[in-house]
């Protein structure tokens, strides 16, 4: 049974798309080895290159529909996700009985589980507001933070990060000054030196950024070269070339908010993580998307519960589903199709092998930087009220 993975497989964000696809295939293989779904049918993930362009994604969606594939997954770029949600809604309205289900593992614009929520869309990543809620809850206790700078990509997700950071900091730590707030075009900046000089001049002690892929690595690389001494509060500094670009100089300087890292305590995915590493594609050694594993496990469970491959039946089985995740129970909230899960704040430190703390066992990309837990935020911390008025078929 085929699912389509629509993500960048060429261009500046190709590495991001390829990493997701490799991990999904690993998970799906494991599900197939356990006996597959619906009494023996095998799952399969086929990659479609959407070049992170909303327009190209719609073209690829047509191909997916032509090949009679009913399940799609996508994660990179909320601009793409917004276009896909609309297209899927329209398709499903016009083609009853041939509905498409959209599993979102990383596009975190809060709108998709609020005013733009859709019965056909399920989000397995904590949205930008949930992550910012958790991050600022933690930051509120860090008294040494005085001045922060916001630098984000100029599209719906970057705007969401910026807005949430401003609102939540004003509420939880009104004494923190926001000394700068910039948006830059997505994937178009090759030289971040001017931005870094500006951050430096602002006197910021921390930078909050939602940047991902090359936009993240090039930013920290420029920061390192210019000797910029700040703490980076990030969503996505944990993989895809960023740790390599930062190098050991970044030890202690980078915080990440995410649902997983390899050195987490009581990790029931430890063996899974180790097995993945053994066969990981060259250049992308780390296991990154625990939420991807949870997504496919829950999807397989929903198929089996629904006893049908029909998208509507699967969607009904998936909403409200509780699942014993590797790091605690998660729930696909019925009201807005947002997964509620525990999150972690982590700090990148020197790995144990390089003289860092004992728990920093596994480093990222062989960079000598390893994540350690700063705080675990239980699922309820990040759960947000929703304005979603779900239209069910």
């Amino acid at each position, binding site marked *: 049974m085929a699912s389509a993975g629509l993500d960048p497989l060429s261009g500046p964000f190709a590495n991001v798309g390829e990493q997701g696809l490799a991990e999904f295939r690993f998970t799906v293989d494991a599900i197939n080895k356990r006996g597959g779904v619906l009494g023996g049918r095998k799952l399969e993930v086929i990659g479609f290159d959407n070049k992170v362009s909303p327009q190209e994604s719609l073209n690829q969606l047509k191909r997916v529909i032509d090949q009679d594939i009913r399940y799609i997954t996508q994660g990179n770029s909320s601009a793409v996700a917004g276009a896909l949600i609309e297209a899927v809604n329209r398709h499903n309205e016009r083609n009853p009985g041939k509905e498409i289900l959209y599993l979102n593992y990383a596009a975190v614009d809060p709108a998709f589980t609020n005013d733009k929520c859709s019965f056909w869309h399920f989000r397995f990543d904590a949205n930008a507001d949930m992550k910012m809620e958790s991050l600022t809850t933690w930051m509120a206790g860090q008294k040494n933070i005085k001045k922060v700078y916001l630098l984000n990509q*100029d599209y719906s997700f970057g705007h969401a990060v910026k807005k949430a950071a401003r609102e939540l900091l004003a509420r939880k730590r009104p004494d923190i000054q926001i000394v700068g707030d910039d948006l830059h075009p997505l994937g178009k900046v090759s030289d971040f030196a*001017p931005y870094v000089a*500006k951050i430096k001049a602002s006197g910021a002690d921390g930078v909050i950024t939602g940047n991902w892929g*090359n936009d993240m690595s090039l930013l920290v690389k420029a920061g390192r070269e210019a000797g910029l001494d700040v703490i980076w509060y990030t969503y996505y500094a944990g993989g895809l070339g960023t740790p390599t670009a930062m190098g050991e100089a970044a030890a202690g300087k980078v915080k990440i908010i995410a649902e997983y890292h390899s050195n987490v305590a009581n990790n029931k995915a430890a063996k899974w993580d180790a097995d993945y590493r053994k066969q990981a594609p060259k250049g992308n050694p780390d296991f990154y998307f625990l939420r991807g594993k949870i997504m496919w496990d829950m999807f397989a469970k929903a198929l089996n519960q629904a006893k049908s491959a029909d998208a509507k039946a699967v969607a009904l089985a998936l909403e409200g589903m509780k699942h014993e995740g590797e790091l605690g129970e998660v729930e696909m909230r019925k009201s807005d199709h947002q997964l509620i899960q525990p999150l972690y704040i982590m700090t990148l430190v020197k790995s144990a092998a390089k003289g860092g703390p004992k728990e920093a066992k596994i480093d990222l990309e062989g960079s000598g930087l390893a994540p350690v837990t700063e705080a675990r935020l239980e699922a309820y911390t990040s759960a947000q009220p929703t304005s979603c008025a779900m239209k069910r078929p």
Partner: protein
Amino acid sequence: MEFFLVQTLNGISYGLLLFMLSSGLTLVFSLMGVLNFAHASFYMLGAYFAFQVSAKIGFWPALVAAPLLVGAIGMLVERWGLRQVHKHGHVAELLFTFGLAYLIEEAVHLIWGRSAVEYRVPAELDGPLFRIIGSQYPIYRGFMMLVSVTVLVTIWLALTRTRIGLVIQAALTHPQTVEALGHNVPRVFMLVFGGGCALAGLAGVIGGNAFVTEPGMAAAVGPIIFVIVVVGGMGSLAGAFVASLLIGCMQTFAVSLDWSLAGIKISQVAPVLPYLLMVLLLIFRPKGLMGTREG
């Protein structure tokens, strides 16, 4: 003040890299009338070759070997590709280079994959060059400037002070006469095309590790070097130099300014400004800043 100084240096070093890229393009255009759409692809090849060579024998040999390799490929392309297409006119040549850009990109995908490769600044050039009141300026940026200025001076000397330079200049305007004087004009074309490609390759060697080496890098700089050539004036080397610095500084300072117009900050539109400049220039001064021919 310190901020202004750092930003100026950032703008100049980026501008000089752009110049190295566009100088080859504008030279080839002035000599052969061919707007080489594949020019940025040679920049990408330079970066990938440098990555490969530096992984084997180090960065310094790569700095020499990679541009030479790219130049050799450029000459082969001219000799066995462009020259054959030339007789069918400029449109055919344009289409040829357009197709070539795609071929090179796909070849890069096949050989090195679609992700960025691990091409890093060598350890001896990694670190601060000097400090200005708390801001440090990286050695590598200084190195980029040094290489670019050296190249600029070398081309200028080669074009004005050497015999081959004089032949090239003469062939610019009077190819038939130069041929009648017994010079091998097609070979001059081949050398210039190869030289232009080698310059792009050299820009790739030093730009690939300063920024990122990935298959999208050609497409990322492609449009901007065309803007530089148009703004500077088609075929004008001095024009390309001025335009490169202008655009490098313009983009840098647009980022620094917090002015906003109707809710949109200048820094948000920074990447569009060069294109705005090009459009305005084409309307009000179609020959470019220092171009000699109209339109």
